[in-house]
């Protein structure tokens, strides 16, 4: 199963629903000038009713039982349409952790985080808006999963550069059941989050490309659309090329882990490649898009910022651009045969 084999009807349904959503709203305060995205609970309920809020969660656990290719269509389309919700957090992270731990999945919306310090976890996505936080404890002794309800923790609000809630969580009690899971779960958590952000970046960058084409072909200066100027064409062509590269690398990573093998060097390399390509693409896409749009693109009233800000936010979550460059560098340097590793993706020990 690959991204291009996702059922057309499902893909069309996802796009139709997301295209129809109202623009996101932000709450602003003197302390948070750029605003915090409001979680739209009624939208979430609709997503849930359509089976999209728990897309990859097993059917026996009340999910839709779909795979990562379907999830990638959903996440990419949501980013493209400017729909901000904890889709990746709820389905790909929280429910996956619960499923892995054999814990029940009750209703409601969840986020997930890794706890390394006893009582505090910083910048947890949407923590102030959700019904529960699935906590993955990682220590030298091993890994444990617990499902905390909102009475078990307090949050103090924060947000990433896109305005998405990234709240600090203070854990009040340790009443909930803790289930030990394999150590590999900690690494897979990071890989899942990283891949989700790469997919979202691709969705946003596709939208940015489209906004640039629309703007350049309609905005008139010197008596003609600015798209007639070669300098402008080249700025946008580079956006198209970088976006295509990021998407190709990300699709390849989705394909690599759609067999649900996250623990191979080839899976790690594919995800590092996706994050590196998407991260470096953003360094071309975001500045070029703002250059094409001129001053209007720097304002709240124009929608460009919804997409450029989210690309900037996501490229630094679940590892920085440098982190993923570093992962790719180390993986390839460890190999006896670097080229063989790059092309086959598999080091001999992990060929399946």
């Amino acid at each position, binding site marked *: 199963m*690959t*991204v*291009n084999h996702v059922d057309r009807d499902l893909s069309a349904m996802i*796009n139709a629903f997301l*295209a129809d959503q109202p623009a996101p709203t932000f709450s602003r305060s003197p302390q948070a000038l750029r605003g915090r995205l409001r979680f739209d609970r009624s939208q979430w309920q609709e997503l849930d009713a359509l089976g999209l809020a728990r897309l990859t969660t097993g059917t026996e656990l009340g999910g839709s039982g779909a795979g990562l290719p379907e999830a990638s269509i959903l996440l*990419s*389309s949501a980013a*493209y349409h400017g729909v901000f919700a904890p889709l990746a957090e709820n389905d790909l992270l929280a429910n996956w952790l619960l499923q892995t731990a054999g814990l029940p999945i009750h209703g409601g919306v969840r986020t997930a985080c890794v706890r390394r310090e006893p009582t505090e976890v910083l910048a947890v996505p949407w923590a102030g808006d959700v019904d529960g936080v699935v906590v993955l404890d990682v220590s030298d002794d091993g890994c444990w999963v617990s499902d905390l309800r909102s009475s078990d923790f307090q949050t103090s609000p924060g947000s990433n550069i896109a305005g998405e809630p990234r709240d600090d969580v203070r854990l009040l009690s340790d009443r909930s059941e803790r289930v030990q899971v394999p150590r590999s779960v900690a690494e897979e958590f990071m890989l899942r989050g990283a891949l989700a952000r790469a997919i979202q970046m691709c*969705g946003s960058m*596709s939208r940015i*490309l*489209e906004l640039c*084409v629309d703007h*350049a*072909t309609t905005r008139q200066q010197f008596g003609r659309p600015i*798209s007639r100027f*070669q300098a*402008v*064409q*080249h700025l*946008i*062509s*580079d956006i*198209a*090329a*970088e*976006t*295509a*590269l*990021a*998407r*190709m*690398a990300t*699709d*390849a990573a989705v*394909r690599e882990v759609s067999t649900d093998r996250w623990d191979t060097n080839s899976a790690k*390399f594919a995800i*590092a*490649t*996706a994050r*590196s*390509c998407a991260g*470096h693409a953003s360094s071309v896409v975001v500045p070029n898009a703002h250059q094409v749009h001129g001053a209007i693109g720097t304002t709240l009233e124009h929608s460009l910022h919804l997409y450029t800000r989210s690309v900037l936010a996501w490229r630094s979550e679940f590892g920085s651009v*440098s982190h*993923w*460059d*570093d*992962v*790719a*560098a*180390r993986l*390839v*340097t*460890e190999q006896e045969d*670097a*080229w*063989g590793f*790059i*092309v*086959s993706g598999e080091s001999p020990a992990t060929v399946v």
Partner: protein
Amino acid sequence: MNARVFPWGEPEAAPLRTLRSDVRTYLKEQIQRGRFRPSVDGWSTGWDEDFSKDLASRGWVGMTIPTEFGGHGKSFAERFVVTEELLASGAPVAAHWVADRQMAPSLLRYGSDGQKRRFLPEIARGESHFAIGMSEPDSGSDLASVRTKATQTKSGWKVSGSKVWTSGAHKSTWVCVLARTAPVDPHDRHAGLSQFIVNLASAGVEIRPIISMSGHHHFNEVFFDDVVVPDELVLGQIGEGWRQVTSELGFERSGPERYLSTYLILAEVIRQVRAGALPHTTAVGQWIARLAGLRKMAFSVATAIDRGESVNSAAAIVKSLGTKTEGEIVEFADRFHDQAGQELAVLRQYVETGLLQRPSFTLRGGTNEILRGVIAREIGLRG
């Protein structure tokens, strides 16, 4: 909604992996036996006719030529795998490169039956050396302005004019010349062009070397003074030259030679980091990841060609990103080491070749500015 400007990617199937490993094993042996010395940009500068013939005897030249014309009836995906391995190892493949990459697809699409029978088997044997005569002293990126003229005579055509940057003409048997066969129509500058296959040993052909700043003799200027070309060596239709040339650009623009010309340099950096002669750096990951993404794109173009899809703009994306990356890898490696140390001597030599070849990467086969124009048209910026 979410429009794609690029074909979908496909994974590399198991038979392709086997083919890949066969080629790699062979190349490793050849290097160990000292049969060739890996060189940066070897597809452009490494001319070794015996090596080309040996590759051909293994079925790795003329792969996509149908068996009835002496080829191997393989897919572009299979050819992709073989060319990637050749380029990654820095093999000297220039002698058959143009014939195999450009002339074979052109002959298959536009050649007469007689031309196919005459040229294709020779190409598949690795014995055919072709040059391409497109640019002229006054026609670089603006190809429609070519002034080389072909006029019809009782017994065929007479070609007069000059071509420049003609790679390998001094070692080739044939040159495929784009010439004007009708006066310029100001309303359709691309009309009135035609393609001719010209024997470089013909009377009236003069080849003058152009020496590159690296000291290599690779380019030539080729002069044609009433060179007689028989009717049977007109390629395709008279007046259709522009369409014929541009429709085949996908083959030339999306291949691994558009991102692997400097792979040897990166491989040597990795080897030296591994050996401890150079420090670890995240930049290695940036360039490796970029190459890993680019090769997925190029492979998806190869499979799109196999499906008969139009790939011109996708190929332009691969070439513009890939050739820029080739240059950036040289730049990175040059900034990352100094000239001290015996263990870095090979790297230094690769980097110096790379620095001097680099300006060509984003010029040859269509400048990156032209390519961005192609992409701009595809995404609707140029009406």
